[in-house]
């Protein structure tokens, strides 16, 4: 269920691979691998309840890649950069049920990578105990915890959104507000 995603304006040296797992039973183990900086577990494990859509997640991935390319990362690697508040808010928690996993494979002339998406898929299959699910907007929407997101992004005072009757339009407005807020975070 690992999907290789082509992002716009990303050099061919970088490839992005995403998988979704539901009903994950070993979130605590996965988090501990991250915290101990186990190089074999260099992934962005994200709590799916904090993800709105493909665009939301991939915006974060794109930003992390541009930061990595410019050589101005504030965290150890591109994966932790994806979620600037990784290990805390968006990162996996022991209690996390559903997980979105992102792997960015980077192959440079001076540091060629031999890893393939098959290797990544196999490794995840072995170590993530959960049900593979599609990386689709529908699936992600089902897993989103809006009360959490509204709190993180201070969206509760945004009255005009509440006035939008069409549910789809309302969700889209909220998605764009979150993406905007994310792009301004830390600046």
């Amino acid at each position: 269920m690992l999907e290789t995603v082509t992002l716009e304006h990303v050099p061919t040296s970088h490839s992005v691979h995403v998988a979704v797992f539901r009903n994950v039973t070993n979130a605590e183990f996965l988090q501990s691998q991250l915290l101990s900086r186990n190089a074999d577990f260099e992934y962005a494990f994200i709590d799916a309840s904090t993800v709105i859509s493909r665009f939301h997640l991939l915006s974060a991935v794109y930003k992390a890649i541009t930061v990595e390319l410019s050589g101005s990362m504030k965290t150890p690697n591109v994966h932790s950069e994806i979620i600037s508040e990784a290990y805390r808010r968006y990162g996996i928690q022991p209690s996390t049920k559903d997980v979105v996993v992102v792997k960015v494979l980077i192959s440079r002339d001076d540091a060629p990578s031999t890893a393939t998406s098959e290797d990544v898929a196999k490794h995840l299959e072995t170590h993530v105990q959960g049900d593979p699910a599609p990386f689709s907007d529908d699936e992600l929407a089902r897993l989103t915890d809006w009360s959490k997101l509204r709190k993180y992004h201070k969206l509760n005072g945004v009255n005009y959104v509440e006035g939008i009757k069409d549910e789809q339009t309302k969700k889209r407005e909220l998605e764009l507000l979150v993406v905007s807020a994310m792009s301004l975070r830390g600046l």
Partner: protein
Amino acid sequence: MTAAATTTAPQPIPAPVPDPSPPEPSIHDFPLPSALLHPSSEPPTLITQGAEGRVYRTTWVDAGRECALKHRPAKPYRHPVLDARLTRHRILSEARILQKCRREGVAVPALYGVDEAAGLLALEWIPGAPVRVCVNGWIARRKERRRRLADGAVGDESKAQEGQDNSEPAVVAEVTADEEGADVLMDLLRRMGEAVGRLHKSGVVHGDLTTSNLMLRPWEKGKAPSNGHAETEQAAEESLDGEIVIIDFGLASQGTADEDRAVDLYVLERAFGSTHPKAEGLFPVVLDGYRGTFKGAPVVLKKLEDVRMRGRKRSMLG
């Protein structure tokens, strides 16, 4: 970055092909932003070029999502540290103002990404045409209609009147509020005023309001009022129906001073008069639309009278 300043250029110019060995940068040289040197499904196109930078139309994150990418390149003639600081400040200011507007429900482009170090701002692509194009299109169609009518009348009546064509003044006459078909134009002007009013209400002053910086976007699903249903770009442009979206916040600032708000209206009034001289007499409809949008609007309109008396710049005397 005044997209407004360019009155022509509806046709996007293809972006320059990245040169593998770029020449030394000069004042007149705008290199492509580094982000656009990487592969994308469609090549970026250059939309406008102003003194401060360029706007490209390109894709963002996924191939199906269009964006307007604003680039403020480094200025080689400016001290690098100062330049970086100024660019960063302007990019961030524009980004924060856009986000503030969106949180307040003012129709402006959504913010997709900010790279203040690279001088880049990625914004939601707004479909539709600038109000400038829509109003000029309406006036051109009116003229065409009147010319046809006049030609027909001449043909029907006597050939004798040809030459001293007295129908010509009607063809080029100024638009009046009570003429046939002016209702859609008046409605558009009212919505313009309301859009500016909502912007001011949210605590933002635009700084460069023109009919080029107001887009007429086809109604999005779920947002159209019961009487509006132009949901395609062409329908919106021809019927003047659609949602007004304010763009280009490069000169915008946060504030609620009546003076600044009045200057905003004054700049729009002057720009409107010179861009659409035939419709200049209808500008008060914009102000009517503005009047009802927030409590302080009448005070701003009063202030506008003062600003008109002295012009945009505040007097240094007294």
